[in-house]
């Protein structure tokens, strides 16, 4: 340490602020002791969600984070991603698991380093390098790229060699080379864009929710393929923002989307299984937004998500996270009929609607954390790339669709998603602030529900079939639809009336966001709400949601689904309201519900896993399965917030798996009562789609 201190001058790295996150108390104690001996300033935290809150409240409070990979409330990789995106702090992963593929995953998620337990003192002594390296690289980004890159890289390499942070022998070499490669790629990509970088060091840009929203909108508008920093910059029209800022942010965003896509692609995680809840849970604002952005998430889902994010207990946002398969179904369903349906949310995005179901074009799979969503099958949802305005709307829609999509067809989604993901993250992806506020539930008015609640809300469900004229959404066929149906219908109705009315309950998610109509408002909502969900708000408005999906084919099914949905009982404000509430909207229902219903046969061992399962592409099949699931709600899904909702999510309101537990049962009951899950009627499976 003395040598290190000397090398850096002053007392660095003495007093460097380290945050250690690990659910293992023994390990936490040992690490704390070791770090104290290194003369660092140590804070320990046994819960990832709490750590995230702490970080959000005090971004500058820490220099580096050390986090375990396996944690019950949140997947370590998810935390890693969130921290990287929101706070841009170096994160070191650690685990007793030394498998190369896991280490690789850590690197891909942006970990600065990966330590194998038991962690040795020598390894901890060197962690200050990561802090320095990161700062140096950032400055470099703003500076003239070129020779500096090489120098820095060499330096990094040398450091790595000397200090051998990674303890995995096999992985070490590969880790290092991966890291170098990544740095190199980053540098190169940065240079690609052509414009001469300014030579002066620029102050770090804080990507606020608002800014990010603008960014996402711009990207959506341009189309992910055409989104070059220069154009994005022009579209954003933010004074003081440089092309370099945009370029580096775009890069991160792409990586993020890719990761999400991979998640959706059903890349099985060994971790996912155990930490299923945790994994999905983190869906927090990021994911939500991303989902929204992608427009794949049906508005309702978005709303639900928003609610969740906002911390609304009732919101059943969990949906998104819960069961990708179900989501997909929902999405799928919705998309079908929708094609024409343009959710009249009043948002320009409607265009995407039709596609939405087809594929989530934008699947901006939000935050990588959403494994459950599975790939947002772009194709499936057919989310057209909505015009920028869409950004907001599409987001919600996308997210909804995504959700649906996810549920339904993991497979299709996957393929589609990748593309979509890139597309439009509609900003939801990461509003740095919004995320934070998530828990704080800024109070995004429930009414933000972009989902557009049909005016007839009260009788919504009941009258859906007839009243839903324009909403074919209620696609009966898809069970998920039915779940979503409620939501979708709302969208379909394109009335901005909050869904809540529909079921008599409040669909917090749905309803509230009145932002339907405006794409831009979305952003504003975004801001105000700080809710990551904000995005949804707008998005929801956009007709995105697969009107078709929700639509239950027959009134009967409607009612049935209605029942399924939770029979109108006052649904907790949260659409998703954790299971306790009537499932009402499939998506909205508590995650458990969602999961249960959605993931019919797939193993839903974990949120993410489900996705991987690759439901057969066929929608119908999905539906069936989902419908089946509805009734049955596979154990996994139930009662457990798979990922998204449940514990660990930063969303304060969290659906709280616990709460959900009971509802789930209810849900299942209701589902069952509404008719056998398998009953096509309920889900309108009979081909209404």
């Amino acid at each position, binding site marked *: 340490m003395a040598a290190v201190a000397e090398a850096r001058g002053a007392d660095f790295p003495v007093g460097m602020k380290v945050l250690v996150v690990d659910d293992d108390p023994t390990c936490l104690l*040992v690490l704390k002791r070791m770090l104290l001996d290194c003369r660092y300033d140590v804070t320990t935290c046994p819960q990832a969600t709490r750590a995230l809150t702490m970080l959000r409240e005090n971004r500058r409070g820490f220099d580096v984070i050390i986090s375990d990979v396996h944690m019950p409330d949140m997947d370590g990789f998810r935390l890693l991603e969130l921290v990287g995106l929101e706070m841009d702090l170096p994160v070191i992963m650690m685990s007793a698991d030394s498998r190369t593929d896991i280490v690789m995953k850590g690197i891909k998620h942006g970990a600065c380093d990966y330590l194998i337990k038991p962690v040795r003192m020598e390894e901890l002594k060197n962690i200050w390098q990561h802090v320095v390296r990161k700062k140096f690289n950032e400055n470099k980004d703003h500076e003239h790229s070129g020779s500096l890159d090489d120098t820095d890289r060499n330096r990094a390499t040398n450091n790595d060699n000397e200090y051998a942070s990674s303890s995995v022998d096999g992985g070490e070499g590969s880790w290092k080379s991966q890291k170098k490669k990544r740095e190199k790629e980053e540098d190169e990509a940065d240079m690609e864009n052509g414009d001469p970088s300014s030579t002066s060091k620029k102050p770090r840009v804080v990507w606020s929710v608002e800014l990010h929203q603008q960014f996402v909108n711009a990207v959506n508008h341009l189309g992910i393929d055409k989104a070059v920093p220069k154009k994005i910059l022009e579209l954003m029209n933010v004074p003081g923002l440089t092309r370099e800022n945009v370029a580096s942010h775009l890069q991160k965003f792409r990586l993020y989307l890719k990761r999400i896509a991979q998640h959706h692609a059903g890349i099985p995680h060994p971790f996912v299984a155990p930490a299923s809840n945790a994994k999905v849970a983190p869906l927090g604002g990021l994911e939500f937004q991303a989902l929204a952005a992608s427009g794949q998430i049906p508005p309702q889902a978005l709303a639900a998500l928003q609610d969740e994010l906002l911390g609304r207990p009732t919101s059943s946002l969990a949906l998104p996270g819960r069961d990708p398969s179900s989501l997909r179904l929902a999405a799928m369903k919705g998309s079908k009929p929708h094609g024409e349906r343009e959710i009249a949310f009043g948002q320009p995005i409607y265009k995407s609607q039709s596609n939405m179901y087809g594929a989530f074009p934008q699947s901006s799979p939000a935050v990588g954390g959403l494994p459950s969503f599975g790939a947002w099958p772009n194709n499936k949802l057919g989310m057209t790339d909505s015009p920028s305005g869409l950004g907001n709307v599409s987001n919600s829609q996308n997210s909804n669709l995504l959700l649906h999509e996810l549920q339904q067809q993991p497979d299709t989604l996957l393929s589609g998603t990748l593309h979509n993901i890139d597309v439009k993250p509609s900003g939801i992806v990461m509003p740095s602030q919004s995320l934070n506020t998530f828990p704080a539930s800024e109070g995004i008015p429930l009414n933000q529900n972009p989902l557009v609640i049909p005016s007839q809300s009260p009788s919504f469900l009941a009258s859906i079939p007839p009243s839903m004229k324009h909403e074919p959404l209620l696609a009966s066929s898809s069970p998920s639809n039915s779940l979503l149906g409620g939501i979708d219908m709302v969208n379909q109705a394109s009335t901005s009336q909050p869904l809540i009315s529909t079921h008599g309950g409040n669909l917090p998610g749905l309803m509230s966001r009145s932002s339907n109509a405006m794409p831009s408002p979305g952003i504003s909502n975004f801001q105000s709400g700080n809710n990551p969900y904000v995005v949804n708000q707008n998005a929801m408005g956009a007709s995105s949601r697969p009107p078709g999906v929700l639509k239950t084919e027959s009134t009967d099914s409607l009612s049935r689904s209605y029942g399924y949905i939770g029979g109108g009982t006052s649904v907790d404000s949260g659409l998703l309201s954790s299971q306790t509430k009537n499932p009402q909207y499939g998506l909205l229902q508590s995650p458990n519900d969602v999961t249960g219903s959605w993931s019919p046969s797939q193993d839903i061992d974990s949120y993410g896993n489900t996705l991987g399962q690759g439901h057969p592409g066929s929608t119908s099949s999905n539906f069936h399965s989902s419908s089946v699931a509805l009734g049955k709600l596979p154990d996994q899904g139930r009662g457990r917030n798979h990922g998204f909702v449940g514990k660990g999510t930063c969303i304060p309101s969290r659906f709280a798996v616990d709460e959900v537990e009971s509802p789930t049962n209810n849900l299942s009951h209701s589902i069952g009562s509404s008719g056998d899950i398998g009953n096509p009627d309920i889900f309108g499976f009979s081909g209404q789609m």
Partner: protein
Amino acid sequence: MDYSNLRRQITSMKKSLFDQGYLDEQFNQLEELQDDSSPNFVEEVVALFFKDSSRLLTNIEQALEKYPQDFYRLDSLVHQFKGSGSSIGAVRMKNECSMFKAHCNNRNLEGCRRSLQKMKREHATLKQKLETYFQLLRQVGPRERAVNSWK
């Protein structure tokens, strides 16, 4: 008050723990962390470990008996156990955890059960041995202990 005798006992006990594979280098690291500012550090950590791991073992046992078995969850629990154990240098237990995980992967319920039994035995044995070890250390007193842990 024959410290030299006690010290000999302590040294030999520690050596045997290492030789028999109960503990590894990590334990030494822990002892190195111990100093005047935290004179009972190792004992604290070990106590914390045994408390936490007992709970984990119970959870594992329960999870094993639940039907249908959730191997993912089992794997996750044992993984936690493994991480914990490795933090104090409990190498035998760590190895047994690896075996358990392998059985989990193969969904071999019987194998898991056997492994669990072994883990419990190792757990109990290590606990007892370390308790004796710390008792001896306490007898020699902090200063002597510091000298001892210096190895």
